[in-house]
């Protein structure tokens, strides 16, 4: 049998109260149309790829054994051409695995999962990462509804849950769309989407799944599906025959609709509380609907979603959000405009060091060092082996808040990090604000977008240090 071996999630640290957004650009809206709660907002140096790497790291916890493929599902791939899943795999230091991008609809998340299960049935381990960072126009309903998040599932052995079966319903239902080269999602009328799409496809897909397995809704412990319209989420559950107690809460008021990652994120939340033997039905929505039936085996011991929800900081400035998303032209200064070209042949040669944060360790004296050295910095030996720094915790050796250096979010915070077990290098700090850095403070590493070179169409990635222990951040 095949199942879920481990799970991971990632929520960006920042949350924007929807009231902030409405006040800024949609104060004319009828109060009845206002959505309650807050949504997650990716930091300026995050995108679906960086969030996906973080969710994958949370999922794997350093377990890389036997992974044969990495599937990345997103409607917002940073690269239109260049396999995003390939960058993701390199960041995880999973060289040589098969990588595939799934895209085109928020349904890409469950569709990737489906393909991965098919593959896992052959006894393989496949990592599925779903992530989205979608944008709506300023003042649009999408802007208020969407949230940024990533989730990852390692499929293979049934450590967490066993897959009993699935149904997949594909349809070219044009509820939401975006042409190549466009930034913002468009939509047809909500009422039509709800009745003809959301309600109909989910009813069909889940109904068929239950029928095939000879189950009634009452024999299911938990039903998990995204909330396209938060008020209709419980209504749809009722229509499908589920009680409110069976419905997995939508996180709409804490996170928002996170696109391709949404059903996976909610599934992880459902598995957190689930006991052995419980049946969980999960369904996605987008270009039809895929649904899955799981039986919980070991369940999830760690409260990963809870922890991600607790790690939060309010973003009170709508203008800052616009600047982070590149929706307003922000002064870069001539220093920021001066960008040396990226050598892709160099970046390729050194991909393990740059994307994977793999340094070296001297075989003679054991000293870890980053970036990888040809000659040991401690003993001068020349026999060095690869050494992974990404999972290492560190401490702030020194830092500064640099008003002169270019950063989208000034001042630039950077410093020197000492890794536990040895090794030292300079890193940007992120998810961190002025006045928060201290010598000796603990940090963990996070995969981030380092720069965007608009002239040459390159999005460059590297690792940054995130101070730990704030805002409920337990690391």
């Amino acid at each position: 049998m095949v199942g879920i071996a481990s799970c991971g999630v990632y929520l960006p640290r920042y949350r924007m109260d929807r009231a902030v957004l409405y006040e800024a650009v949609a104060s004319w809206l009828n109060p009845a149309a206002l959505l309650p709660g807050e949504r997650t907002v990716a930091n300026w140096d995050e995108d679906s790829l960086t969030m996906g790497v973080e969710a994958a790291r949370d999922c794997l916890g350093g377990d890389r054994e036997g992974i044969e493929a990495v599937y990345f599902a997103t409607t917002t791939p940073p690269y239109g051409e260049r396999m995003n899943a390939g960058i993701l795999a390199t960041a995880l230091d999973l060289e040589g695995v098969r990588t595939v991008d799934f895209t085109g609809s928020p349904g890409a998340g469950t569709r990737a999962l489906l393909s991965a299960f098919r593959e896992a049935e052959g006894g393989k381990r496949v990592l599925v990462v779903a992530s989205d960072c979608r944008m709506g126009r300023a003042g649009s309903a999408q802007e208020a509804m969407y949230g940024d998040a990533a989730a990852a599932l390692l499929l293979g052995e049934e450590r967490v849950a066993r897959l009993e079966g699935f149904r997949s319903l594909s349809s070219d239902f044009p509820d939401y769309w975006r042409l190549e080269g466009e930034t913002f999602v468009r939509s047809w009328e909500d009422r039509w989407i709800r009745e003809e799409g959301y309600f109909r496809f989910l009813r069909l897909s889940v109904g068929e799944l239950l029928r095939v397995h000879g189950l009634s809704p009452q024999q299911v412990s938990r039903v998990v599906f995204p909330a396209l319209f938060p008020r209709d989420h419980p209504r749809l559950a009722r229509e499908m025959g589920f009680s409110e107690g069976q419905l997995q809460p939508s996180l709409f008021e804490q996170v928002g609709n996170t696109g391709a990652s949404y059903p996976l994120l909610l599934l992880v939340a459902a598995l957190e509380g689930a006991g052995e033997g419980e049946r969980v039905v999960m369904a996605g929505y987008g270009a039809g609907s895929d649904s899955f039936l799981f039986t919980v085996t070991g369940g999830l011991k760690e409260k990963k979603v809870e922890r991600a929800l607790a790690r939060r900081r309010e973003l009170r400035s709508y203008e800052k959000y616009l600047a982070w998303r590149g929706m307003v032209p922000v002064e870069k200064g001539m220093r920021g405009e001066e960008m040396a070209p990226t050598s892709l042949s160099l970046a390729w040669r050194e991909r393990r060091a740059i994307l994977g944060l793999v340094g070296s360790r001297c075989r003679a004296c054991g000293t870890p060092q980053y970036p990888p050295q040809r000659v040991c910095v401690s003993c001068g030996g020349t026999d060095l082996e690869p050494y992974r720094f990404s999972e290492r915790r560190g401490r702030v050796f020194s830092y500064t808040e640099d008003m002169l250096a270019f950063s989208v979010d000034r001042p630039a915070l950077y410093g020197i990090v000492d890794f536990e077990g040895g090794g030292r290098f300079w890193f940007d700090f992120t998810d961190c604000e002025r006045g928060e850095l201290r010598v000796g403070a603990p940090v963990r590493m996070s995969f981030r977008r380092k720069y965007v070179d608009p002239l040459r169409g390159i999005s460059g990635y590297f690792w940054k240090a995130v101070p730990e222990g704030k805002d409920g951040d337990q690391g």
Partner: protein
Amino acid sequence: MGIKDKVAIVGMGCTRFGERWDAGYEDLMVEAFQEALEDAGVEKEDIEMAWLGTCFDEVSTGKSALPLSVSLKLPFIPVTRVENFCATGSEALRAACYAVASGACEVALALGVEKLKDIGYGGLPEFGSGMGARNRLIFPNVTAPGAFAMMAVRYFDRYGLDPERGKEVLARISVKSHRNGAKNPKAHLRREIKVEDVLGAPIIAWPLGLYDCCGVSDGAAAAIVVRAERAKEYREDPVYVKAMQVAASSGEELLHRWDGAHVETTVRAARRAYQEAGVQDPRRELDLLEVHDCFSITELVTYEDLGISPRGKAAEDVEAGFFDLEGELPCQPDGGLKCFGHPIGASGLRMAYEVYKQLQGKAGSRQLRDPRLGLTHNLGGFPAMSVVSVSIFGLDRG
């Protein structure tokens, strides 16, 4: 081993440093060169070899020896451009001195120049790919103030200075340099300042504020060196080269082991320079210092790295006025980088120019009483990865 007393400087020139909107690098070179020629009493045709020091060639002169040979119309002699970050100026001088000491030539020219104020924004030019094509993909967008600010954070932490007290110590260093620079007609910033000005100035890179940072300016300086035994043929008061040492980081500080509160390359270069010059007790034997005060914190740790102040105790010397113009060991009598600004290629030679003039008793209202031995210190790069030059010059031939 060494070049002690093998070479002497017989002529020097230094332009007015500043925002020389009126002048290009060619103007600056000619200005410094003419003064050096006149000072040495030699003709252009007497120069047999020359070294040009420039760092940010891409925004200023361009690469190679040609900016020098063409600007000065040197007659097809060997000319080489050298670059070693902020130690570039000292490197040009070291190359000229080594050439003369080796016997390869009799008369050599070292000229450093940098035209920084054509880039269109404050501070040094963005490092871009200057750090290497790989490094810029992994390093933060480091600026010079940021890199040195991290040393201030470490220094404060290591020696238990709370930032307020630490910043006050640093402020006194800048106040001292401004007092000296105000007396110097060639300095860029000629205004005395108070500790409150420094403490109240905007932060550039925490904890360093505007007055903790040296200026950014245009300038050039030049030296003409000859063999020591023939120096008196050129002038009565030649200045003898006692030591020229350079140390470059091994990577240990950046990647492995370092307290972050000192500059190891300064320690190493100074140790070798004292040995070369035969200096036993620098605190007593030296009469003046021109150190690389790109930032106030750099000057503070340099006092310790040069072995002048004990570790962690430089603040006491600063507060006692030890390094003031009237103090026991004046530092930056000309105003330093703080007041001159830092046209990279020129700075090392500008420091030597001040030592040269002071030793000859020609430093005007800044003149120290009978100095015999002076030291220059030039730091290129960042504290964690640097190239440091320490040179010692004396009036007496041993």
